[in-house]
């Protein structure tokens, strides 16, 4: 089974992390990533850039509204993710617990759906289409 580890940190934690030498953070995360790789469980992972380089598309109104920067009233920002392949949920818990994060940070861990989640819908035109979209995206 696959799990996504989604890193979320409060604004305060992100501010506090700026006090820590960046190289220390790189080293700690690097060691963690290496342990995931050497255990053969790491499938993918990326870090996200500063939220002010991003934007938000809000679907509250009829026309989507695009605003710059982070979502106004959020207390926790997503700032990176890993996708792991583990044999049990407990193993995912164990790996997530080892992530070198401090107070103010959380990992939200979610199982990644696979085709077995859609077994009852394999004839569904949209399930098949989605597979097609995935293919196109993968080939870009």
């Amino acid at each position, binding site marked *: 089974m696959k799990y996504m580890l989604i890193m979320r940190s409060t604004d305060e934690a992100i501010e506090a992390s700026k006090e820590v030498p960046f190289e220390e953070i790189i080293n700690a995360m690097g060691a963690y990533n*290496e342990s995931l*790789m*050497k*255990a*053969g*469980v790491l*499938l*993918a992972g990326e870090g996200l850039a500063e939220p002010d380089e991003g934007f938000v598309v809000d679907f509250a109104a009829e026309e989507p509204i695009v605003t710059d920067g982070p979502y106004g009233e959020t207390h926790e920002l997503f700032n990176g993710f890993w996708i792991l*392949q*583990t*044999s*049990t949920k*407990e*193993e995912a*818990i*164990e*790996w997530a617990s080892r992530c070198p994060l401090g107070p103010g940070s959380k990992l939200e861990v979610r199982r990644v759906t696979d*085709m077995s989640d859609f077994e009852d819908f*394999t004839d569904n035109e949209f399930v*098949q289409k989605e*597979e*097609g979209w*995935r*293919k196109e*995206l*993968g*080939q870009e």
Partner: protein
Amino acid sequence: MSDIRRTVDAVWRIEGARVVATVARMVGDVGLAEDLAQDAVADALAQWPESGVPHNAGAWLTAVAKRKAIDGWRRRERLDDRYREIAHELDAETSDEWEPIDDDVLRLVFTACHPVLGREAQVAMTLRVVGGLTSEEIARMFLVPVPTIQARITRAKKTLTAARVPFEVPDPSEWSGRLGGVLSVIYLIFTEGYTATTGDRWLRPELAGEALRVGRTLAGLAPREPEVHALVALMELQASRFAARIATDGRPVLLADQDRTRWDRGQITRGVAALARSDALGRGRGNYALQAAIAQCHATAASFDDTEWEQIVLLYEALGRLTSSPVVALNRAVAVSMSAGPVAALEIVDALVESGAMRQSYLLPSVRGELLSRLGRLEEARAELASAADLAGNERERDVLLAKAAAL
């Protein structure tokens, strides 16, 4: 299963190889190290519900296993100077100071696949001590009773001890042969998951997944070895087709008929990247790299007809020169049938029949039957497919062959 059992299993799955490897370097015997580590696991099951899971659970298990080793030596009054020193160091050590050494895990991999062990023992030891699986899990994956796996592991450990197999990586003179042995054990585990040779299930994805996991671990331990990356590439590329290989009724779907939109694109991307890593080492393509390159041709082709069959023929020719395996020749025949047509392919297959190779395999009559049917020689084709069905060990495969014969 209790919560603590699940937690301990998860810790073992992650740390098992490194715990056993660290202890094995101390005691010089993998079998003993594994027994000691299992004793430490039993202690964890007894103590962790009270004490909580230690912050560094792998270090805890290692320290307990090492102490048990010392206790064993004390009991047998074999605490000579060397062991006295280890015991002293151990007493001074705090359990958070554990730095497992990658080379120890590599030694463990080579020992689990040591040539004094038979194939089944190598497979069981690799999954148990390198993969961190329990005997129950291994038994379930191979559809054999748990005591069978337990007996295999016990016997393997005794064999390693009796043969005084050192806890070392092989000498440079033996390195490439022994590495080849390790890779073939991993690939054997994978192929048993990819095309189960027995039983009524065509695929055992968990088993293939375990092989991939051990393969990725080995790629981390021996990153300068092109064939290790190539094996990972081959397994990723083949496993990317899992979802498309079985129809909803459980029957296998052949490559030509597979819905390519169901191939796992992320996995293909990882496979292509792993082959590129292998190629980037600049030492030429070996057995696994050539197979991975063939798998890559299939994985990146938009459709069966758009496949670069001529390229595949060339890759099979190169592979044939390396291995002179009849299975490779047969696969080359299939590729030739796609690029040059069934007549040229039938010549290769007939030469194989004449040589007497693969007489017990269903593959030869199955391919021959396919080619004959394309040539319109239906009577002969039906006979070949029927004899292929007789030889097939997997029930799902047999059904497919019989259906094909009936459809002619």
